[in-house]
């Protein structure tokens, strides 16, 4: 009685049941329990043997772009650290001026050595120290002492005051 009530509550519908079964049908045979289980175990074993290495998984996931970017940044940093430095030119020919960090290339110095236009190699965006050599005779300087300045850009003008 209770079962019948449950069925009514669930809205048993025989024509619908028949239709569904006709539409989907049933397989003609069922899998053998033992061989099925053996096949499952074999697959598990095979898949664990051919496990994909972590770096391949990483490369094939949405993290791929981030991983590639990180590699590029890493390579760039290593290159910047160890890349051969540009040979500075013109230092020797500039009276009264010495460049402590010689990675800057001096392009132009005015006749009184008060203006220096410099360029850094593109990859060497680092600070540059200019200084006036203390040993330079006083008469070549319009001001006394030593001038130091930091530059972070790759191109600039340093004016001695």
């Amino acid at each position: 009685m209770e079962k019948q009530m449950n069925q009514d509550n669930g809205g048993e519908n025989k024509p619908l049941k028949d239709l569904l079964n006709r539409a989907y049908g049933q397989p003609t045979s069922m899998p053998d329990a033992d061989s099925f289980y053996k096949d499952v175990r074999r697959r598990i074993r095979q898949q664990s043997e051919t496990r994909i290495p972590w770096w391949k998984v990483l490369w094939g996931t949405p993290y791929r772009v981030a991983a590639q970017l990180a590699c590029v940044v890493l390579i760039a940093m290593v290159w910047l650290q160890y890349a051969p430095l540009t040979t500075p030119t013109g230092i020797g020919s500039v009276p009264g001026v010495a460049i402590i960090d010689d990675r800057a290339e001096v392009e132009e110095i005015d006749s009184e050595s008060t203006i220096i236009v410099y360029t850094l190699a593109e990859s060497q965006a680092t600070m540059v120290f200019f200084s006036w050599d203390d040993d330079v005779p006083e008469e070549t300087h319009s001001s006394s002492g030593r001038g130091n300045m930091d530059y972070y850009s790759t191109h600039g003008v340093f004016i001695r005051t």
Partner: protein
Amino acid sequence: VNKSQTGASNPKEGGTEKELVAALRQGSEEAFRQLVDRYRDRLYRMAHRMVRNEDEALDIAQETFVRAHKSLSRFAGRSSIYTWLYRIARNLALDRLRRRNAHWHVSLDEQADENGSPLLERLPGKEATPDEAAAEREMMEKVRNEMDTLSDKHRIVIELREFENMSYQDIADEIGCSVGTVMSRLHYARNYLAERLSAYMDTGEGQA
């Protein structure tokens, strides 16, 4: 690997789902065997209903257990174990259908031999006229499409009831809800399908 090797405790034969899941998490080989035995046939039939090919259905059912084995540690227990397996199997079957549709499609109306006889008429055991066959095919497609529009929770109960002939209580135990919820979902799913498939149900011959 057995109990003595893993240190896992084996579940009782026919024990509760909680006991089974606990044993599975401990890596019990016996529990995994029980899991396979308990759900093998049902998943196989479910996959067969979707792909309509016994070899592929077998493949899907086996792969379902392989995937389940791999991710047992991630099974949170929020759904019942059958619901979890059902979703894995269904996704595998859907992938299979998508690949099949993308790469291989043979229409039964296509000319299949040099005499120009359609493939449908040459299928063994097929004695339906082309019109009847077309109507049958249309009915099958319509039923499947409507079933696919049901949500997972409604589709599961109707499959377990109409195809597996399980009692309300067994369905409730299987999917981890009350009998009342099962009846309510069934009621909804049946009404939904009956409304959309009434033409086919009335005639029984697919005359929409």
